[in-house]
């Protein structure tokens, strides 16, 4: 899904995010979320760029790279490492757990030979757990990119995975 970010692209993405959310301190998380969404993750260069573009304008905010990295590493939805073309987010929370979520999680790990947070060598898949997405009435639930799968069974896993290029 994501090609490696090139420098000029990072500059534009950051600029657009700042234009959209403003220069205020309270815009930092929206800006980083925007960058994360556009690039798939927040490369170190993007953090430098956010700092550079925020600090220099007259009405800008002073923010250190450390602060920005602190935000990017604190929030689960912000990634500091590149991810695969497809990201699987599995809900391993209690309601999904008690209706058979663990078997699904084990099957995913075994099929992809990945542990939580890892990416396959061909950069196709990243496997993650997610916080509860509130679809508990159809658990176990998993997301592939933005597609939701509910009432998932172990047998469905290969079928679901096959439908992604």
């Amino acid at each position, binding site marked *: 899904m994501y090609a490696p970010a090139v420098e000029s692209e990072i500059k534009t993405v950051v600029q657009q995010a700042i234009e959209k959310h403003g220069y*205020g*301190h*309270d*815009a*930092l*998380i*929206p800006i*980083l*979320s925007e960058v994360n969404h556009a690039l798939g993750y927040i490369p170190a260069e993007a953090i430098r760029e956010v700092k550079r573009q925020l600090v220099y304008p007259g009405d800008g905010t002073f923010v250190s790279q450390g602060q920005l990295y*602190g*935000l990017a590493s*604190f*929030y*689960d*939805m*912000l990634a500091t490492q590149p991810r695969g073309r497809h990201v699987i987010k599995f*809900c391993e*929370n*209690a*309601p999904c*757990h*008690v*209706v058979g979520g663990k*078997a699904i999680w*084990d*099957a995913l790990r*075994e099929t992809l030979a990945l542990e939580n947070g890892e990416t396959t060598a061909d950069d196709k898949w990243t496997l993650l757990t*997610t*916080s*509860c*997405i*509130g*679809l*508990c*009435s159809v*658990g176990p639930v998993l997301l592939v990119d933005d597609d939701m799968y509910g009432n998932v069974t*172990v*047998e469905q896993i290969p079928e679901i995975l096959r439908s992604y290029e």
Partner: protein
Amino acid sequence: MPFYRSHVLVCVDPECLEKGAHEVVDALQDELVAQGLIDEIQVLETSRIGSCSSGPEMMVYPEGVHYVGMTADDVPFLVEEHFLKGRIIEKFREVHKPIVDEELGPLRPKEVRVVLRNCGEIDPMNIEDYLAVDGYQALGKVIGEMTPEQVIDEVLKSGLRGRGGAGFPAGKKWAITREVQDDPKYMVCNADEGDPGAFMNRRVLEGDPHSVIEGMIIGAYAVGASYGYIYCRAEYPLAVETLNVAIAQAREFGFLGKNILGTDFNFDLEVRVGAGAFVCGEETALMASIMGQRGEPRPRPPFPSVKGVWDKPSNNNNVETYANVPQIILRGADWYSSMGTERSKGTKTFAVGGNVSKPGLIEVPMGITLREIIFDVAGGIKDGKNFKAVQTGGPMGGCLTEEHLDLPLDYEALSRAGSMMGSGGLVVMDESSCMVDIARFFMEFTQAESCGKCTPCRVGTRRILELLEKICDGKGEAGDIEKLEDLCHEVSRNSLCGLGQGAPVPVISTLKNFRAEYEAHIYEKHCPAKVCRSLIRFEIQAPTCTGCMVCARNCPVEAISGERRQAHHIDLNKCIRCGICMQVCNFNAVSVLS
């Protein structure tokens, strides 16, 4: 704001327009004037109600009658029959409901819907739908007829308590925020519904966003706030979108912005989206996140009502608390407090999950028993199994047992039993759940979500988790239970915020209620529920096995051997105890032993 006894919503989508919707609206206006009803019945133009295939469509509230295929010539008949004589005209009635809501479904036995009353009934993307079901009438009443003090009194009298789980009286919080001498003041809505298994707030935000917005505006009027934030988690993209649409529409209608309803009261609102951090549901962490910082909690006092967002007084309530407010104002504190127990009033929404027949979203009056919730409202335990435990209050709540099932739903009663009301997650477990595994599981969650700021929580939760993993792994030793109890006590007592203070509760409650299971794991190396992988083994029952080879083909580690049509055998040294063989066997020939 005038009070209408009835509202007629006429669809003015292109398709209905072509079939004469405007003529119907004009005829309605004329006829209502002619009959002298124009001050009692409001005609609104709205977007799509149904399929538009059979011509001008309209909804009549409060009855919720859906009429289709009516022309301007039929209008005098409609006004006479429906509005003067109160008779529904079956001839024009559309029998299908306009919006189908599978998550919520029809009212279940013993349910009372206040907060969820509009979900699935109105179009959340259209403010006129909300207006038609008495929307913003409470705001009109508050601004037109009540002083801020009277509003606070009414909310106080209703007995409404914080629905985020802590149960602080909402009216009292409003009074405290009002009394602080500092400007500006903020309203904050905690829509960071992070408890696994709890999705009540998501449903309200997606299905009836204006009730929350109206509650916040009323609160702002009462405490004297001029700006507000709704902090919504990023895992709920649809809720964020719905809220943004609703806020824009409320602004357009003059319910938000400057000079609200023609008075000198100003209040505006924005949605702030989280970025995935459970701890941001804690109010001080939430406010830090609004200000663009890491969501780390800080010690209280000062409480947000005194020093909150941008160090200014900030009134923070949860989605459900705000959504109750308009109804309390309209129907009165006495009506609200007529439901519930002595100290817990009104209704509470729950997301019932786990091993019940009918999981989903419910709203029940306070004072109902857990037994009624599980067996009458949620349809009892699935697949004819036996009830074992119910966890109330989310990941920091306790696991209660059979003996607690007749407890009334009440903040104090649940605390006394060793759990809590929490925000409304309810996970029901049957006999196939291992309580040590459940405790380990919740600890894994809170440990991962610990923000790391304070040592008892950062280190303590990890040590507790390690002990639980050791016990589940069959390596528990004498003294481990006591060590767990000590650690839990210290972490509860010394942690900075609710996350650390509550994290040990699932362990404490399972130790209290299911101690024998811990002892079985430690002393007998036995998992009674047959869940913990290290303590179980799978066996193929030779007499039942047909030798179909399905298990052998599906085994990920090739631990199963045997000829076709011959009984198979599992090599326990190779087996990783994943249970796939048991799931795929069509003859129930694989059993699990401990």
